């Protein structure tokens, strides 16, 4: 309890003075950013220097594990909380803007509730695949993961599949196996449905039709997945480790922990328990969370308490990976408020000059370093603003998806795909890294990940997507 106290304190700071905020602010705890855009009218923009805590936190996450690994391991919660507190205090005391803080807290709670519940529920499931690892088997595994990421979310698929993926490859595993897992299952795979990745879910809550994403993204998703898988196959084919082992394989796939599959289903159903989706769902104003988050946090407790101890032991279940995400991301969520507001302001100013290609790159590059959900909403707000429509109006969103589908498509694809660019681009990336390191796999640093993997592999593929679908589009 002592260890999570700083997170709780910062959460309370974020919670701020709830009685100054309207009930409507809490209608949708997950939706934040577009209202931040709107709140700019009520609150002045933050000064540019307020981006410094965010940049500092990003630099610390990138640099400290390289140069002061153990110091960072021990003290990262303090840095994250301290930098987040600077931003929170500035908004409370100087800007008197509780609106942005509350929405950020609501979104953070929604984010961490989903991640924590999927992490704990999947920790009680054991999948054993007794097959000889081959590049083709790995490709099939990754493609399977990319598909089910659209059904159980990128986080659920990542948590469920990372351990069996490592086990299959344990005699030949290299960091690139994990990186491609992050590329395909933790990110790009989940671009087809609103359940797949949080930004698409925010779009769904705002009024984007459930199947719109599939209809408009599958023909970009499919070639991207195939090309990334082909690059993986090429690299994996050159890995001859483990060939000398003469182990007998039964070819069997064993699945244990059905009880926790029920918990996963509860989490997935609870995703839709939102006042914006189901009208009778109560609004819990003035609390910065909803029924959905209560269900998810309950699943965290129940799925842990009732899980098969042998499975937890086999999975070496530990709360540390989710604790790391909780600490780092509360700092990221808090410190990125000024950055998002400034970006939203600029995007709205420049809206007329921005074409789908610019929305694609801007949403994408920022999603790689900021959380992709608010980035998606800010750029969706800017794109709709070009046509005088409001992202808070479901009818406007519906009209926008029909009349200007290319913009929504560019923003959706970029927000999901580019989450794979860094460890902090999407929640599951960090957890996959952490689980892999605990299994003894030395993972590349933040910069090595960027320079050795995401820039040379993903950026050329993303350029191809841009050339094929957005280059020259107005």
């Amino acid at each position, binding site marked *: 309890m002592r260890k999570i106290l700083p997170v709780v304190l910062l959460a309370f700071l974020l919670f701020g003075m709830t009685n100054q905020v309207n009930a409507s602010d809490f209608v949708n705890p997950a939706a934040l950013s577009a209202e931040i855009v709107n709140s700019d009218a009520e609150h002045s923009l933050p000064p540019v220097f307020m981006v410094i805590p965010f940049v500092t936190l990003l630099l610390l996450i990138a640099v400290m594990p390289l140069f002061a690994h153990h110091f960072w391991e021990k003290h990262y919660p303090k840095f994250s909380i301290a930098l987040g507190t600077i931003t929170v205090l500035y908004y409370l005391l100087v800007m008197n803007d509780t609106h942005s803080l509350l929405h950020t807290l609501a979104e953070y709670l929604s984010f961490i509730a989903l991640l924590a519940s999927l992490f704990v529920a999947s920790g009680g499931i054991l999948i054993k695949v007794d097959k000889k690892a081959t590049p083709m088997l790995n490709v099939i595994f990754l493609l399977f993961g990319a598909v089910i990421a659209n059904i159980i979310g990128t986080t659920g698929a990542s948590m469920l599949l990372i351990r069996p993926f490592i086990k299959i490859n344990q005699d030949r595993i290299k960091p690139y196996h994990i990186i491609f897992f992050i590329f395909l299952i933790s990110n790009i795979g989940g671009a087809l449905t609103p359940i797949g990745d949080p930004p698409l879910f925010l779009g769904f809550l705002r009024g984007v039709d459930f199947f719109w994403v599939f209809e408009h993204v599958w023909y970009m998703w499919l070639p991207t997945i195939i090309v990334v898988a082909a690059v993986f196959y090429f690299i994996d084919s050159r890995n001859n480790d483990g060939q000398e082992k003469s182990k007998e394989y039964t070819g069997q796939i064993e699945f244990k922990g059905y009880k926790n599959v029920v918990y996963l289903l509860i989490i997935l159903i609870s995703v839709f328990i939102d006042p914006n989706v189901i009208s009778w769902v109560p609004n819990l104003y003035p609390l910065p969370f909803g029924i959905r988050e209560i269900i998810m946090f309950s699943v965290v407790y129940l799925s842990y308490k009732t899980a098969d101890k042998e499975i937890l032991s086999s999975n*070496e279940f530990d709360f540390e990976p989710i604790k790391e995400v909780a600490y780092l991301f509360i700092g990221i969520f808090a410190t990125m408020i000024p950055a998002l507001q400034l970006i939203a302001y600029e995007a709205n100013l420049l809206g007329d000059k921005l074409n789908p290609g610019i929305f694609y790159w801007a949403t994408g590059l920022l999603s790689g370093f900021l959380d992709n959900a608010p980035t998606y909403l800010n750029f969706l707000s800017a794109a709709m603003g070009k046509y005088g429509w409001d992202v808070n109006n479901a009818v406007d969103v519906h009209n926008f998806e029909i009349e200007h589908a290319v913009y929504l498509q560019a923003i959706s694809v970029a927000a999901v795909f580019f989450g794979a660019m860094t460890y902090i681009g999407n929640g599951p990336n960090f957890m996959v890294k952490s689980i892999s*390191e605990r299994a*003894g796999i030395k993972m590349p640093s933040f910069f090595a990940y960027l320079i050795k993997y995401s820039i040379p592999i993903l950026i050329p593929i993303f350029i191809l997507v841009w050339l094929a679908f957005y280059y020259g589009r107005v």
Partner: protein
Amino acid sequence: MSTLNEVLTKNLHGLYYGNRILLPFKADILKAVIEKSIITDFSDFSEQAEYEIKDNRTEIYFYEYADLSEFITTYETIKLIVVEEGRDIFDIKNHIKLILHLNDGHEIKIEEAGENFLFIE
């Protein structure tokens, strides 16, 4: 002194005190994984860990952990790759993956890593 095989078959336990682990067999340590730390440097200059083979045991000191029990939670373990003293360290078949569970009373349960454990050499 017991052999590693005796330790595993007779379920003999080790001990831990603070950052020090005592294993009831003699072995070289090739790799240790503790939380997210992957330790392969056991030299005198290492800031992470060091081990010593004594007359009837092997001792490991993890310098970054004042008290191991504070960091290793219920289902977590310390993982080691060891080669028993006298065995050919260059023969990969002699590399044994061990899982150490920290129990109450300073006791360490030692088991060989089975199929279920994620542990990459």
